[in-house]
């Protein structure tokens, strides 16, 4: 797998059609690529460039700016531990240490079995619920060390898969606009796209 699958190409064209200028679809399409393969491959970026009329350099230029896009494989589960100020005050750094110890890897690394990647992240907007972490961008508020251990056991045993999709999928619900409901007047009068 590398280029977008035929179904994903259809999805990509739907997404592109919603924007007055096609390049605006770039970040959503990189997410589609990451959802398909778990990370963003060079081939997928090339394909997205073809769809949007952008060079590979332009696609990579945008992709590389954003933290969520991984350009090499990561674990099935990305564990993002917040250590920013509100969490630091309530044990965020100790939580990160515990996570590293429990999984046997330091922040930035992936476990040998490819299950978990740990990251030491900035504020994830759950500051009143410190300490907190995300697994594939699903929140765990006021999490204790013991609760994290249980979570790891559950994930290894496949018990939380309905709640937490594998890495690459953020939203599991997509916007659908029925053709007869689409107003389609947002670009009226806008100068033609210049590439």
């Amino acid at each position, binding site marked *: 797998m590398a280029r977008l699958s035929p179904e994903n190409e259809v999805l990509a064209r739907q997404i592109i059609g*919603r*924007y*007055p*200028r096609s*390049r*605006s*679809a*770039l*970040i*959503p399409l*990189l*997410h589609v690529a990451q959802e398909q393969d778990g990370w963003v491959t060079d081939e997928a970026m090339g394909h997205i460039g073809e769809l*949007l009329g952008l060079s590979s350099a332009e696609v990579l*230029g*945008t992709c590389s*700016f*954003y*933290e*969520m*896009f991984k350009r090499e494989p990561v674990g099935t589960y990305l564990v993002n531990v917040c*250590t*920013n*100020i*509100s969490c*630091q*005050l*309530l044990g965020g750094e100790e939580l990160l240490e515990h996570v590293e110890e429990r999984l046997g890897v330091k922040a930035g690394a992936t476990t040998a079995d490819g299950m978990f990647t740990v990251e030491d992240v*900035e*504020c*994830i*907007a*759950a*500051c*009143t*619920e*410190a300490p907190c972490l*995300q697994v*594939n*961008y*699903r*929140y765990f508020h006021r999490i204790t060390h013991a609760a994290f251990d249980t979570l790891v056991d559950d994930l290894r045993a496949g018990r939380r898969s309905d709640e937490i999709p594998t890495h690459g999928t*953020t*939203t*599991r*619900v997509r*916007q*659908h*606009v*029925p053709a*007869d*409901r*689409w*107003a*389609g*007047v*947002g*670009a*009226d*009068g*806008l100068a033609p796209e210049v590439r």
Partner: protein
Amino acid sequence: MAVTDAPKIITTRFDQADGHTLAGYERTGGYAALRAALGRTPAEVLDEVKAANIQGRGGAGFPAGTKWGFLPADVHPRYLVVNGDESEPGTYKDRLLMERDPHQLIEGVLLASYAVDAKQAFIYVRGEMAVAQERLATALNEAYAAGLVGRDIAGSGWSMDVILHWGAGAYIVGEETALIESLEGRRGMPRLKPPFFPAVKGLYMQPTIVNNVETLANIPWIVTNGGAAFAALGTEESAGMRLFALSGHVRNPGVYEVEMGKTTFRDLIEAPVYGGGIRNGGTLKAFIPGGASAPWFFEEHLDLPLSKATVDKAGSMLGSGAVVVMDDTTDAVKACARVVRFFAHESCGKCTPCREGTTWLHQILQRILAGDGRPSDLELLMDVSDNISPGITWPPKQTTICPLGPSAVSPIASALRRFRPEFEAYIAGGRHAAAVPVEVGARG
């Protein structure tokens, strides 16, 4: 001052199990404001928002009605962009509004678009907020199907589209011109203002209104109850209710909707219905009044009201409504270093003072924490700070493209001025004070 009994405006459905669904929203009055507005002129809706005197809740506190009035007449297309990138450390409210009451935001977007005559709006949700994206996607799908968004809205003949867009992780994208760059599919680096004020040259170089999620969530209530009713809450200068995320060392951390201007920091931190006081009966050491970018406040600031003008005058800002409380057990050096690490990490790199300066500040603080600090480091920290933010004034003299650079200086100026002996102790005690084992032959 006081804990007031002002009505809740935007949190009324937070505890309603189906508050995020169309059925739950409409059952509790949802989309009534839209239907009523469609029977009035856009100018009348705009006038209600102007009369409400609602200050933007994203950080800068600019009055929304005034901003909407800046759009040049007769330049089309024009766009509305919703800033749901919430990532200022300490800030947690927009995510709640998107997860728990997505239709309220969508109705606010529709009303704002109607008032300013925008035919397309984009809700830019932070990439890491998967559930908020799901809730908004579901809500938009419901609203399109119910004829509330899209072609011929509620049978009125008025049409517009609302598109859910989502980011991919970068704090700086919260800055409005960076948000627009990102929405155009580029690296999220801020644009120079002027000339790129969004209201004049925004998305696709067209007039664009950028508003925070919380700002727009208030609009349905304002349209239903009238701008005057909103302006009657709070004070003349700071109107209405506002969400404050109270985090850190309080008994009851939480997100509270409080009346501006009349409630004080002390009320918020100590009142039993809010923070309930410092945890474990401890004492206050410092608090950040408006997110990581804001200069810190101390005990002597507790009785200031939650009002923009007063907090500005006292040398900080209400910013994004994030109050971070530190008790007397807090290591000021560690706290300061953590906030500076954030800015160093998030600098987009476009301006030299910010890119180089924040990196240096971070490295100097790390060596102080590691027990390798030098006595000259404290002057060096202030000197580098002065190069990013000349004079280290508040508000900063901005020599960078956006305020991120000067914001990195806030925690240093605050902590170093107030808690200098703690920094000196780290430096004097060297590695032993920092409890780092000394290895023979190690660096240094």
